């Protein structure tokens, strides 16, 4: 390699480095100023008995010990992990819908506008409607009785398994539109020729979707999965609140709902709420690392 080309390459690399650093600087500054402080604060408070006001005595790992030794915490973790079921279902259905709309099925313009509507409606209303739908005298039980599948009405929200199932259904229903729109965006970057070729080769819908489209938008799928997983751990509060209030007992309470209970309702041991948040952070972090290793995202960084 001639020294001139090597020098040019070095200059380009240094320029690129500088550009890169300046590009991310505003974001890093904003996050350091506004997100890092609360996170450090929460970590610090999690080892105290902070009551939200002026009482804040160091208690070591007492909050953590109490949580990890109690039964309730593990019920919450179980609930969050069971509710994770909503993610593969959402993603799968979102992909199907995205490909269908991308391929312009009959009425696609009309349907495209409608899929996103659940995202626009308040989660509290959606939760309330699902609660009513699955209530003892609600439509689902009525229909099931009429078609003879279930002679005796089931109290869907009264049993752990069925209550969690209803919640999963509700979450999937609300989020399919979002998944679809994310994947449609991803699909729009794929040249039409690829699909044409697949069709000419006689590939059916499922093969076109999962063996042609998905590999081309893997990073987008990964983004959707990661965000949905994080959402399942941090964003379910309004749904749980209006669907089941976390009940019966703690059977459908999730970790973020518990944080709400501990910090908003009685609000006396906010240190404990912070401890739950820290544990939540660790769980999500672990899941994310596993997910990134599984999809080999690390490769992206070593190009």
């Amino acid at each position, binding site marked *: 390699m001639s020294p001139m080309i090597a020098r040019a390459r070095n200059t380009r690399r240094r320029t690129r480095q500088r550009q890169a650093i300046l590009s991310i600087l505003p974001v890093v500054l904003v996050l350091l100023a506004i997100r890092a402080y609360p996170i450090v604060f929460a970590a610090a408070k999690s080892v105290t008995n902070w*009551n939200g006001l002026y009482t804040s005595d160091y208690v070591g790992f007492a909050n953590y010990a109490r949580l990890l030794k109690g039964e309730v915490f593990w019920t919450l973790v179980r609930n969050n992990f069971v509710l994770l079921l909503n993610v593969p279902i959402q993603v799968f259905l979102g992909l199907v819908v995205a490909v269908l709309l991308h391929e312009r099925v009959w009425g696609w313009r009309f349907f495209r506008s409608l899929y996103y509507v659940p995202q626009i409606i308040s989660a509290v209303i959606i939760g309330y409607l699902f609660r009513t739908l699955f209530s003892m005298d609600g439509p689902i039980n009525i229909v099931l009785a009429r078609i003879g599948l279930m002679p005796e009405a089931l109290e869907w929200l009264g049993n752990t398994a069925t209550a969690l199932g209803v919640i999963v259904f509700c979450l999937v229903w609300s989020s399919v539109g979002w998944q679809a729109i994310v994947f449609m965006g991803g699909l729009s970057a794929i040249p039409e020729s690829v699909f044409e070729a697949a069709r000419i080769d006689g590939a059916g819908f499922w093969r076109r979707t999962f063996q042609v489209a998905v590999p081309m938008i893997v990073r987008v799928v990964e983004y959707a999965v990661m965000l949905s997983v994080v959402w399942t751990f941090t964003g379910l509060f309004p749904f749980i609140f209006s669907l089941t209030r976390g*009940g019966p007992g703690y059977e459908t309470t999730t970790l973020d709902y518990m944080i709400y209970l*501990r910090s*908003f309702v009685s609000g006396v041991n906010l240190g404990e709420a912070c401890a739950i948040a820290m544990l939540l952070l660790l769980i999500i972090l672990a899941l994310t690392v596993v997910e990134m290793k599984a999809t080999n995202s690390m490769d992206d960084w070593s190009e």
Partner: protein
Amino acid sequence: MRKVLRITVLLALSLVLVVAFTGCAKKEAKKLTVWIPGRDSYIGPDEQKKAQEEWYISKAFKRFEKANPGVTVELVVEPDAAAAHQTFKAAAVAGTAPDVANLWSGQYTFGIKDAVRPIDDIVPKNDLANLVGWETMRDDFKADGKLYGYAGYTVTLCFFFYNKTLVKKAGLDFEANPPRTTQDFDAALEKIKKTGVVPIVTDESFPWLNLYVAVYWWYQMSGPDRILSDCLGKTKFADDAGLLAMLDYYHALWQKGYVNRDAATSSDYWAKFLQGKAALTPQVTLVMSDAIAALGADNVGILAPPEIDAKAPFATDRAVGGTGGALVVSKNSKNPDLAVKLISFLSSKAETMELLKTQAFVPIRKDISAADMGYKPGSVQDKMYSFKDKYIYFVDNILTPGVVDEYYKLCPLVLVGKMTPKKFAESLDAKAAEMKK
């Protein structure tokens, strides 16, 4: 490259400018900020359909400003009364808590007491004489505890609302012959059940039946001091005979079919009652007008809970209720005397009568009679009013934080038999022990 640098600097500068500019706070002399919930407060049920200037409370503030030149009062509507306790705390830590806040009494106030200015030294003596509810605002309910504020503007009362037609159909008359013992109550409910109608309908995911009726039985057997000492871990819930007796009867009601099967998760209990499909439902008097609108004024009655024991040591012939609200002055306030003056003004007889024109409720003044309120003798409002001094204070405002959360969460399980009373009591004990540290 330099262009990038220039733009980044410009961006940073503009961010700083935005921050600085929008951060300018104007300081005014003698300004009071008051937090009030959007409903179930000084703001009446239909007032948000009118412009803010038309609200009773806005006009009241104007009257106060006129009587106190140089003072301005700013109203801030709390979007959510429960969350307001936490935003109040955050504001207190930051030094920006409002002068006056309308929150909840009892343990809810004690939870924020470090941010509240006690008013023993500035509360007018005649308010202490003419208003009720002071004991719910004294530290730990002790008679000599620090006074943290005024009790909220109304005495809320809880009863079984009942459908007179359905009850009559079962051959009963709760006005002439209300069931006063649990045996009579069971018999009455059995008769109602036989007519094919749900006797009691409720949604225990917010434990209406327990908190607004059943706790009366606990209270009347064990008394408030015992309840408090259980919470503090000095005695045990598991040894509290009153609690266990109450829970047994509570579960028995469901077990015998007197309460709707899906009580733990019901979403339509209130609709069922308003449609005339259920005979009784535990409720607060605040929703009386909706019940009357749906069923007719002659068709709605209220029934106080029966006695679990005729010789109950701590209370008989009472309903659950009390001054659930609170008016506190924050420690941040630069004008605490003025703040108390405002609260006293709002609690005066003149202002209370004015407020009564926009909403019907039981006032906290001792010198207002049912006739003053325009209640017809024999009407359901009149009967409600007769319990003005006959209530036991909300037990969920007595239960300490932590314990009260556990109580809320687990009592529906006891109702439908998914948890035994003993296990419930033990969970409460565990929580009390935890909170003790």
